[in-house]
């Protein structure tokens, strides 16, 4: 039997249907034994899904949903609904991880609930002041075009001097790229005789490079590779893992150097969000487990932090040992970022 619907019923149905559809998309409506974890896009998502989430689900019988994005967005989402957070486990940069700790978005690590923590060197917890654990890291060194740069510089200082002498054009991260304060401003200042309290040498070097038309800036990680491939630049400051991942795709023209000063450490932190269920600790345990960590390192070609992990030879050559990296003063840099960004905008450009 057919029933004729009134306009009012159709409208009410539309509104109710829309509300239901929206509600079903909300993590707040996920099953109780399901947690929401975070990941960057691309190969990261694949690695997190196939390794950490798979390990967690196999061990606990629970499920974990992955939310793709970046730390600023995730932190805003948690801030907006702190009593019933839409995210349970946060992947974060270290400067924002410290902010998340100070502003009450995440919990302190509980060693009794993290069995795999015993194999993580203390520095990877202390650097985050206990507001999470570093499980993975990249190192920012010198990446270059092997066919166009016969004698690549061995240090950051030599790299700047070579560019100013007109030997090559540099591709450096712009201020729109989130890790720039650590990987470029502090790194340059440190290499050229400055410090976190005196970044004048970094800004002076950047201005000289601009005046000599010896630098271009990239706003996203892929853009650096385009700069080298298209011939817009010959070398620059870039990540070891991304360089080798690109090399593995057949781009054998790209090379990476850990500069004499040391590549800049860029840790990735995993944090448990406040008011998230205890099963979130179990997921963090999976993230810290040696088996999934080794496979993760093989996929993304970045270093991992469990001391039980033994890299195969091909990977060992590519990963910068964390002991050979420079650790920026993350907390001081975090506090200085607004001033540095403002200065960059006025002196260098957006």
């Amino acid at each position, binding site marked *: 039997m057919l029933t004729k619907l009134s306009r009012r019923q159709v*409208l009410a149905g539309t509104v109710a249907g829309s509300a239901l559809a929206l509600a079903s998309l909300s993590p707040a409506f996920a099953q109780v034994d399901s947690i929401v974890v975070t990941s960057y896009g691309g190969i990261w998502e694949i690695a997190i899904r196939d390794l950490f989430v798979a390990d967690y689900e196999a061990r606990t019988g629970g499920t974990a949903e992955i939310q793709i994005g970046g730390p600023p967005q995730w932190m805003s989402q948690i801030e907006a609904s702190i009593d019933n957070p839409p995210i349970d486990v946060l992947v974060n940069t270290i400067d924002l991880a410290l902010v998340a700790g100070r502003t009450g978005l995440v919990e302190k690590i509980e060693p009794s609930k993290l069995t795999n923590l015993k194999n993580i060197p203390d520095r990877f917890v202390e650097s985050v002041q206990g507001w999470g654990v570093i499980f993975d890291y990249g190192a920012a060194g010198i990446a270059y075009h092997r066919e166009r740069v016969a004698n690549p510089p061995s240090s950051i200082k030599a790299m700047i001097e070579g560019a100013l002498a007109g030997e090559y054009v540099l591709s450096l991260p712009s*201020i729109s790229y989130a890790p720039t304060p650590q990987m470029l401003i502090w790194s340059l200042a440190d290499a050229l005789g400055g410090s976190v309290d005196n970044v004048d040498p970094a800004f002076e070097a950047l201005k000289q490079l601009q005046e000599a038309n010896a630098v271009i800036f990239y706003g996203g990680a892929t853009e650096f590779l385009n700069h080298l491939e298209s011939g817009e630049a010959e070398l620059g400051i870039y990540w070891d893992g991304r360089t080798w991942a690109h090399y593995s795709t057949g781009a054998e023209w790209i090379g990476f150097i850990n500069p004499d000063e040391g590549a800049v450490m860029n840790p990735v932190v995993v944090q448990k969000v406040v008011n998230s269920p205890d099963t979130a600790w179990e997921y963090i345990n999976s993230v810290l487990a040696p088996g999934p960590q080794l496979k993760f390192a093989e996929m993304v070609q970045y270093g991992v932090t469990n001391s039980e992990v033994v890299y195969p030879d091909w990977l060992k050559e590519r990963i910068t040992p964390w002991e050979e990296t420079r650790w920026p003063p993350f907390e001081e840099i975090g506090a200085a970022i607004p001033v540095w960004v403002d200065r960059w905008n006025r002196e260098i450009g957006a």
Partner: protein
Amino acid sequence: MGFSFMIPSLLLLVAFFIVPLVFVGEMSFREGRLPPPGGGLWQNYERLFFDSFYLGVIGETMLLSVVVTLICILVGYPVAYFMVRHAGGKLYNLIIFLLIAPLLTPIIMRTFGWQVLLARRGLVNEWLQSLDLISKPLALLNSPVAVVLGLVHVLAPFMILSIASVLAGIDRRLEESARMLGAGKGMSFLKITLPLSMDGLGTGAILVFMLANGSFVTLLLLGGGSLQTLPLLIYQQFNTTRDLPFAAAMSNALLLIAFICLFFQLRLIRRKGV
């Protein structure tokens, strides 16, 4: 009764425009990470409107949008005119296809295309060098010229389609009457065709201006810091500085400026008698 049909749209508008706007408005009055001396409720707006650097950024944002709009008019009008007046059925369809096809590819792909063309070892520099017009590569990328080229490429179809749809509706007999009364081709275009097509031109100008005003990806990929606009700085405040109150103030300022420009553009078009 008709009003009830608008309820779903109004609900969407309230949920996804008005409510977020209220949140952004409230956020803009919180303390920023680099407050001006004295602080206060309006501190983020003070920083924005009383600092010559940020006023320069606002000016650059507006100037870029105006330049892109004017170039789109200059490039788009002849194309639209040719399409409507001279292209036959198949050619007309081909032009429409060529205009719409690029819109089907992501803006980021089209912008990367410009990177490849304008690079130091790119196609343009190679041609210029092979023709002995230049001895060493020009710095074409990471310049305002590259940004304007990229934006015109992305936005010109909006202008052309807006003008073409209005041109197609103009009664050709009006132009013929003008010609019969002694007006030359140029005079008949200036006195009849152009005024009657102002509606399409205005629509196209508003669309292009607004889209250029909020454009971000093209500036980030082709500008290389050579241009500083509000959308770039908003992204920076969110992504690098995490100064959300200041980003919110900039966002509101951008919206307000867009409304003001829209108001004046509409007045200008109406004054032209359309």
